[in-house]
Structures are given as structure tokens and as C-alpha cells.
């Protein structure tokens, strides 16, 4: 290491269910290079100080969505957050808010996975398409309508950011509803009816209070708050039976 290596204190939440009744914080002194991410800090702890520290990570380049943590109380990706920006202060790393803690920084995300599967994340055409019909044609403008919502990496920072999800775990939630909108907004899809039960439910778009923190923390610019709140209008039009006049494409079940 270089002579001018600095040391930072990283305070990590620990919870080993086989021996702990409650989580507690443990502080480690971590020497770091200027370009180190918080993830690299955690890896140093695991490699050199305490191999029992558990945390998820993979690509270390903000595309896999594995390394979401609460860093000084804000949901962030560990690989995209840098120790130099906190030095000389302590960095407090905890598991993503609003999820049950399995072990250390690892949370139980089964609820989210179920919701993602439940919103029918695939093109629902009006009729099944044959090979002879060839490929779908889509203009750049049509692609624009859903592209940002397709950028979600399922990192769950938005769920950690959403107090409504924390208060009501039944809420479908930002990422799932953003993906739902990604399909509804796709010109190849005509599945509004098929997905409407989820959209129109109390735990659908109506649990959202437009706190807006989800869009603030999203590392990919998905803007789930936009996806959800546009659909409050759609859900309202659907409720009063007028949506079908604005959606000439119609519905597929």
C-alpha cells in the first residue's frame, strides 16, 4: 500500500440468528485507497478482519443490483459509493430498510420476487403472433415510452426508500409497479386488463403517497414514482369506465 494510505472507520450491522436475539453494530478500522468503494471496504473486512461478515455482491459495477445497503441511513449501491466521500467520518453500513434481516447485511427478498413474478412481466399481445407475421415493428418514439422503466436492475433501493412499503409490506412497491408499467407502455403489449387487478388494488398504485424518495435513490433513473403515479390517473379513468375510450388498442386477458 502507498505511504499515504488513510484509515476509515466502517460500522457494520451484525446479526447472526443462531446466537443473536437482536442486531448490533460493530466497528472496523479499514485502510483504503482513494478509489475504494464501500463494497471494497466490506470485502477488506471479510478478507482480512472478520470472515463471518455476510453481504451480497457480484458485478461491482452497478448493473447486477446485488450490493444494495443502507449507507449512513441512505439506500445506496455499495459498489457505487466511495469511502473517500465520507472520510474522515465514520461510515455506517446496514441492511436495506423495510426487509427482514436474515444475517448481517443480507435481507429476505422473497416478497419482492413474488411480486415481480405476479405483475406478468412479459408481452401480452392481443392475439398470439405467428412466425409468418414476422417481427414487431416499433418506432424510436414508441420505444421511448417504456425504455427507462426497462432499466431496472432489481437492486431494491426503492423498496428501502419507500416508507409506504415499510408500513405496509403488502404494497406491490416501486420496482414491481415500474416493471408493470414498462409492459403496459410497450406498443407490442395489450395487457392492461390482465394487470389491472394489481394496479387498481389498495396495495397497487393506491398505497403510494408520492413521497418520491424511490426515484431519488434509483441508480438507473427508472423513476418508479412516475410509473406509479401515471397509473393513478389510468386507474381512476378505469374506475369510472372511461379508460377504454382512451385505449383503442383494447384488452387481452
Amino acid at each position, binding site marked *: 500500500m502507498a505511504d499515504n494510505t488513510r484509515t476509515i472507520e466502517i460500522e457494520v450491522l451484525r446479526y447472526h*440468528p443462531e446466537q443473536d436475539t437482536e442486531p448490533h453494530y460493530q466497528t472496523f478500522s479499514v485502510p483504503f485507497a482513494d478509489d475504494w468503494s464501500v463494497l471494497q471496504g466490506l470485502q477488506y473486512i471479510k478478507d482480512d478482519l472478520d470472515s463471518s461478515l455476510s453481504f451480497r455482491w457480484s458485478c461491482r459495477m452497478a448493473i447486477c443490483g446485488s450490493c444494495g445497503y443502507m449507507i449512513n441511513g441512505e439506500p445506496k449501491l455499495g459498489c457505487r459509493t466511495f469511502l473517500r466521500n465520507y472520510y474522515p467520518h465514520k461510515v455506517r453500513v446496514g441492511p436495506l430498510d423495510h426487509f*427482514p*434481516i436474515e444475517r448481517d447485511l443480507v435481507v429476505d427478498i422473497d416478497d419482492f420476487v413474488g411480486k415481480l413474478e405476479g405483475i406478468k412481466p412479459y408481452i401480452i399481445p392481443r392475439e398470439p403472433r405467428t412466425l409468418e407475421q414476422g417481427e414487431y415493428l416499433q418506432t424510436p*418514439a414508441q420505444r421511448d415510452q417504456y425504455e427507462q422503466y426497462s432499466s431496472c436492475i432489481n437492486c431494491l433501493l426503492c423498496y428501502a426508500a419507500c416508507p409506504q412499503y415499510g408500513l405496509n409490506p403488502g404494497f406491490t412497491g416501486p420496482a414491481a409497479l415500474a416493471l408493470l408499467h414498462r409492459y403496459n407502455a410497450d406498443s407490442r403489449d395489450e395487457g392492461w386488463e390482465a394487470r389491472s387487478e394489481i394496479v387498481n388494488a389498495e396495495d397497487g398504485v393506491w398505497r403510494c403517497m*408520492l413521497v418520491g424518495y424511490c426515484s431519488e435513490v434509483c441508480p438507473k433513473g427508472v*423513476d418508479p414514482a412516475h410509473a406509479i*403515479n401515471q397509473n393513478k390517473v389510468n386507474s381512476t379513468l378505469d374506475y369510472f369506465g372511461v379508460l377504454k375510450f382512451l385505449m383503442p388498442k383494447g384488452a387481452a386477458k
Partner: protein
Amino acid sequence: MSARKPYVRPMDGWWRRNPFFMRYMAREASAVFLAVYAVILLVGVFRLSQGKAAYDAWLAALTSPLSILFHLVALLAVAYHAYTWWKVMPKTMPMLHVGGRRIPEITLSAVGWAAWLAASLIVYVLVRGL
């Protein structure tokens, strides 16, 4: 036998833990001031229906220091509501494009803020003109 024992953290005091949430709660709290003001107006209409003496008493009550203080605080609160309302309004609208380019959300908000200013000026001019 599984050793899993997922730990669920309580939500108590969640909004005090982050300035973003504090601002959200301030926005929500503005509704209390708006509600009280609307009731003050309702009482005014009621007094108006009871005749000049009753209405003048309501008008006089508005000149008390307590009333003026309330209205100053309410003004700040409801102004914060108005500011944040137009700020988030674009989130309820579909994406808009002009000449192939996306209209930025801040532009839409600016239209809202401008409408707020225009409406305020119109009301003030109308009241002055009376």
C-alpha cells in the same frame, strides 16, 4: 431444523431519520393548516348568512394577533404545499414529447408555478379593484 430467524425492524419514528422524509411530512402537515383555513372561511359564510353584526364580529376576530399569526404560518404551510404540488405534478402525467424531444419535468412544473403566480396576481388585482 432451520437456524433462520429473520429480524423485522420497527418503523417507529421513520420520518425523523432522513431529511427527505421530514420534508415529506412537512408537505403532508400543510393540510392541517389548509383545513383550518377552509373552516375559518366556512364560519365566515355562516356569519354572513346571519347578518351584518355577526359578519362584522367574524371580520373583527380576524384582526386579532393570534389570528394574524395563524394566517402567517398557514401562508407558509400552504405556499409549501403549492410549491411541492407543481413540483410533483409531472409525475402524474404521461411522458410528453415536442419535436421528438422529451419535455423535461421541470418545464411542466414551471408552468404550474407560473399559473400559481398568475392566479395570485389576478386575485389580488380583483380585490384591489373592488
